[in-house]
């Protein structure tokens, strides 16, 4: 009996050790530095900076939370997207983040709240000056014009999101117009079911470093070829490609595409699907063009090649990569125009159940879930 009691105390002591070593304390104001350019079409106000540090041995975990209100101070343009850049150079060398707010309809003089929550881990406890720099990467307006230094390619990313938003908004407006409230409700419920049943994977992406694949069953490793889904109206078509597959790891994906359009292409991106042993498909990753200075002439080919390793798990277990499928999900022309697949093309290829909903579809279905059909109909009538 005493032995058991003693063992219990030892276990409690072991569990409490990290907590005893950890010290939680507030950080001085100014841990987060927010700065926008002087001619920015959005201004921030009401900045609150709540940051706390927790020492864990020699390391430090810092929770940073910043809230503010962004206001459209442009003369007459409606803001449809904002991207903020988050950089902590001293924590993760070369590592950075961004927070994008797509699917906005913020008119001149109007404002909206934003909140950014971050967590930093540092090897040392010393805090000198701002830990995180938050700045404006770009603003997308309703006429698809852009403001910003675009270091994170937020112009292209937000433009693609805006095109998806318009595509899906039009779809729901058409459903409402053609089938009324009951038809809209059915479409929204179908989307919510699809979102909740979408098969999901956990992934970890590593740049460089040795392979550390694991597997759920004995597997062979080697080059696995992609199969491709092709959309008739896609300006770029995949020609061939492969990745090194071993267990739950896929390395060094390479896909060659051909420009079938009459215009120069500046960027393209593929979506990458993987199947498990049972044939269940999952959206694994996006595979962007690798050349930042790409200018793909008509009828010429180019590669999307990345020297990375992706490891997949599902419910904590390694998921052996089986068949791989790819399709073109985004093309940017040299003139700045963009192409995305139509909703009909995605439905025809049975891809809607696999890919994530667009930001606008997620917003609209969430609006229905939180506020009901009347709120959704009002929203659809607004824009």
């Amino acid at each position, binding site marked *: *009996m*005493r*032995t058991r*009691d*003693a063992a219990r105390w030892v276990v409690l*002591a*072991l569990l409490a*050790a*990290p907590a005893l*070593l*950890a010290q939680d304390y507030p950080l001085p104001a100014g841990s987060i530095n927010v700065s926008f350019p002087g001619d920015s079409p959005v201004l921030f106000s009401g900045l609150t900076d709540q940051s706390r540090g927790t020492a*864990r*041995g020699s*390391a430090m975990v810092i929770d940073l939370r910043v809230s503010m209100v962004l206001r459209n101070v442009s003369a007459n343009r409606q803001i449809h997207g904002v991207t903020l850049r*988050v950089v*902590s150079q001293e*924590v*993760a*060398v*070369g*590592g*950075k*983040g*961004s*927070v*994008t*707010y*797509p*699917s906005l309809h913020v008119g001149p003089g109007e404002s*909206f709240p934003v909140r950014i*929550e*971050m*967590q930093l*881990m540092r*090897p040392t406890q010393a805090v000198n000056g701002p830990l995180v720099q938050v700045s404006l990467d770009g603003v997308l307006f309703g006429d698809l014009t852009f403001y910003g230094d675009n270091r*994170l390619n937020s112009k292209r990313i937000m433009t693609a999101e805006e095109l998806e938003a318009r595509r899906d908004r039009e779809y729901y407006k058409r459903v409402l117009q053609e089938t009324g409230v009951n038809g809209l409700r059915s479409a929204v419920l179908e989307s919510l079911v699809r*979102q909740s049943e*979408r098969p*999901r994977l956990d*992934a*970890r*992406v*590593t*740049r460089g*470093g040795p392979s550390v694949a694991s597997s759920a069953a004995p597997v062979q490793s080697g080059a696995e070829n992609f199969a491709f889904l092709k959309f008739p109206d896609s300006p770029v078509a995949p020609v061939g490609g492969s990745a090194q597959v071993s267990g739950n790891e896929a390395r060094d994906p390479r896909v060659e595409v051909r420009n079938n359009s009459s215009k120069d292409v500046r960027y393209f991106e593929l979506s*990458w699907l993987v199947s498990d042993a049972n044939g269940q498909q999952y*959206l694994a990753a*996006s*595979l*962007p063009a*690798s050349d930042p200075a790409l200018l793909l002439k008509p009828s010429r080919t180019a590669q999307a090649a*990345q020297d*990375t390793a*992706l490891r997949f798990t599902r419910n904590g277990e390694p998921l052996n990569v089986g068949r791989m499928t790819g399709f073109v999900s985004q093309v940017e022309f040299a003139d700045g125009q963009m192409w995305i697949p139509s909703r009909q093309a995605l439905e025809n290829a049975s891809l809607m159940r696999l890919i*994530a*909903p667009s930001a606008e579809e*997620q*917003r609209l279905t*969430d609006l229905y879930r*939180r506020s009901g059909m009347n709120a959704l109909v009002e929203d659809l009538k607004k824009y």
Partner: protein
Amino acid sequence: MRHPNRATLALHAGGDLGAWANWRTDRHVARCAECRQEIAAFRAARRELPDAAEIPGVAWNRLAAQMKANIRLGLTLGELEEPAPREAGPSAWARPAAVFAGLATLLAAGFILQHNGPHPIRASQDVEVETTANGIQVRQGAGALGLLHRGASDIDVNYTPGAQGAMSAQNVDDTGHVTVTNVYAN
């Protein structure tokens, strides 16, 4: 095999040994049928004692204290007259060594737990992006930058890895706006 003395076995049967002596005796008893029988006999004798408690007018607590004192006195005198054989177990230096080993284990376990908690810190210098319990993060060595979406359920967050070394998370926040967070490995 050296056996614990009878007093130790008696105290063990009553649960009156200290934690360390109790552990040592437990280990011995586990592989010694003779001592197990001895302890069983002490326990059987203890089971009869509650019947004696029924006798009125006896100050049992005082009596027990006197008996315990007498037993200790007798044991001490016995040790003075004739050194008892040493109990089975480690030699004199082993106890402090075991204490130090325990402390070292405690500190090591604390260190391991601290560094393998919800947000592990790796020694690897590879740049990795990954999902975490409530967000996404980019990590290199002992440093990491994470963007969080606390409060959003897993089913409401759509993650998309980027093969170039990126991770995206999309969810609707409590104001009804869609938020897309990204972390990049370069």
